[in-house]
């Protein structure tokens, strides 16, 4: 195979991996949007908050340490323990469930039957609150996240693909972490699918996503389902936060991946889980390939805008996205 083609393939593979992360964030959006018609602007911040909480718990950080020190003149930072990764992850899941309950109780419950724009604004408020709250609780410095995921390039892949090309090709250069992310994302989607198809709660979730009135009439509590989907979205945010955090550290820019999820959603459709996955992968691959092929001609940095231009084209020609249901105004 010509080396140039192999390089292009490597770019594509790396793009796929980046796409997995976009897809994970988009998935969180879709879950909440389907079940409650809310566009959750806070999904990206939830990933940041989850990652912060995970690191904080794992490192035994004292929550609100800065605040406590400022008020009482003390100087506490850490409890002095170090939790195993799995324990910290389970505790963080618990925190995300509590967050879901709080959101339902203090926000959603009071806004039922409001216009979507009002709910959207509420989630903007939630995003800013959570961002500040995360800062106060865990501090704003950049943190390393290490839950024992493999790091660095996979030599195995490199060695076993070197034969594909000629002298100048040393095999595909792929991050191990990216491979783990892909596998985890796949497992997550499979288990979510099984859950929603075969469990009582999953069935109730699909029912609520389809029709609120009908769901109530068969005995489903909307409030319970909202807590459930926000918990699941919190869990998905945690997974995305772990992957992204392990790659580039836990910092504020993590919440900005939510912005990339927006074009992903426009591509995949706001109501389609497969759409979120495929949309994420297309954007991931597309922006890397575009940078590789066209980038040099236009001075590079195309990754900053490629996704949005692609989304814009979709908005014009196929506003419901690749898999989204056709939007028909109810009259």
């Amino acid at each position: 195979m010509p080396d140039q083609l192999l390089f292009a393939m490597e770019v594509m593979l790396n793009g796929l991996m980046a796409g997995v992360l976009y897809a994970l964030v988009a998935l969180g959006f879709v879950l909440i949007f389907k079940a409650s018609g809310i566009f959750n602007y806070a999904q990206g911040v939830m990933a940041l908050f989850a990652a912060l909480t995970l690191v904080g718990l794992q490192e035994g950080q004292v929550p609100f340490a800065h605040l406590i020190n400022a008020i009482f003149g003390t100087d506490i930072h850490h409890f002095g323990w170090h939790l195993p990764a799995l324990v910290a992850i389970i505790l963080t899941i618990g925190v995300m469930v509590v967050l879901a309950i709080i959101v339902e109780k203090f926000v959603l419950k009071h806004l039922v039957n409001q216009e979507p724009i009002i709910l959207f604004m509420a989630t903007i408020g939630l995003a800013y609150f959570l961002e500040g709250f995360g800062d106060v609780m865990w501090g704003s410095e950049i943190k390393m996240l290490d839950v024992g995921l493999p790091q660095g390039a996979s030599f195995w892949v490199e060695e076993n693909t070197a034969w594909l090309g000629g002298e100048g090709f040393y095999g595909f250069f792929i991050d191990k972490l990216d491979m783990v992310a892909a596998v985890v994302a796949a497992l997550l989607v499979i288990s979510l699918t099984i859950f929603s198809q075969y469990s009582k709660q999953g069935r109730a979730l699909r029912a609520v996503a389809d029709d609120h009135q009908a769901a109530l009439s068969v005995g489903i509590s909307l409030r319970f389902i909202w807590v459930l989907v926000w918990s699941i979205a919190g869990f998905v945010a945690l997974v995305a936060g772990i992957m992204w955090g392990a790659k580039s550290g836990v910092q504020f820019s993590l919440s900005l991946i939510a912005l990339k999820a927006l074009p992903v959603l426009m591509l995949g459709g706001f109501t389609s889980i497969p759409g979120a996955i495929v949309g994420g992968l297309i954007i991931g691959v597309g922006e890397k390939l575009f940078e590789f092929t066209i980038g040099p001609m236009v001075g590079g940095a195309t990754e900053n805008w490629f996704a949005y231009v692609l989304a814009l084209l979709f908005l014009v020609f196929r506003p419901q996205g690749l898999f989204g249901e056709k939007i028909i105004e109810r009259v």
Partner: protein
Amino acid sequence: MNKMTSEGYTTADGRKIGGTLMEMKNITLRFGGVVAIKDISFDIHEGEIRAIIGPNGAGKSSMLNVISGFYVPSEGEVRFRGQKRPQMRPYQVAQQGIARTFQNIALFKGMSTLDNIMTGRITKMKSNMAQQALWWGAAQREEDEHREAVEKIIDFLEIQAIRKTPVGRLPYGLQKRVELGRALAAEPKLLLLDEPMAGMNVEEKEDMSRFILDVNDEFGTTIALIEHDMGVVMDLSDRVVVMDYGKKIGDGTPDEVRGNQEVIDAYLGVSHD
């Protein structure tokens, strides 16, 4: 009908009807300035088919919505099985064994007929998430049982041919039938039907009437239904409540209300003043 008491009565065709199942006492319902229901009382006996009739806007659907918890009455009390019912959310009412259909059909449009009816069994499903995750076998067995119950309903309503069809694509008449199926799947004690035959042709109406009678007869389900077609009402119901402008203007057997002057006036459109 003879000797109507709260313990029960016997219909003209000799069916034995049980005691009071549900009692509406002095129900009033206001929407801002509009009074949809004005101080109405009536009861529903165990095992009977009770019709609610009246001209458009009389407040029939509102009454059904009060019973099923979708509307909160401004005044009055709802008594179920002899006890005052605290204010309940619609899903709690459903869990008590009261199932319903809607005037404007509320189905899960993206789901198949089978899935829609299966969703009707949610109140009957036991396995919780932890159980399902830990013990797949029990969950599977339960799923099979529910599936069997749903298949029986599908056979009963003669809708085998559309089992897998997304209901959004079905014609109106069949959608009404699926919605009935979903309500039946809950094995309700009380079934509330809001205009189950609206928009149907004569043949479809006959089918639907037969299903309603069979449900009542075979499972002993108590049924309260709203219907405009007087012929259907006379054929199906044991007792009829007549509403007009939010007030109750008649209550009794079909023959009794048919002879009631106020009812005749309401239906002939005698002006209200």
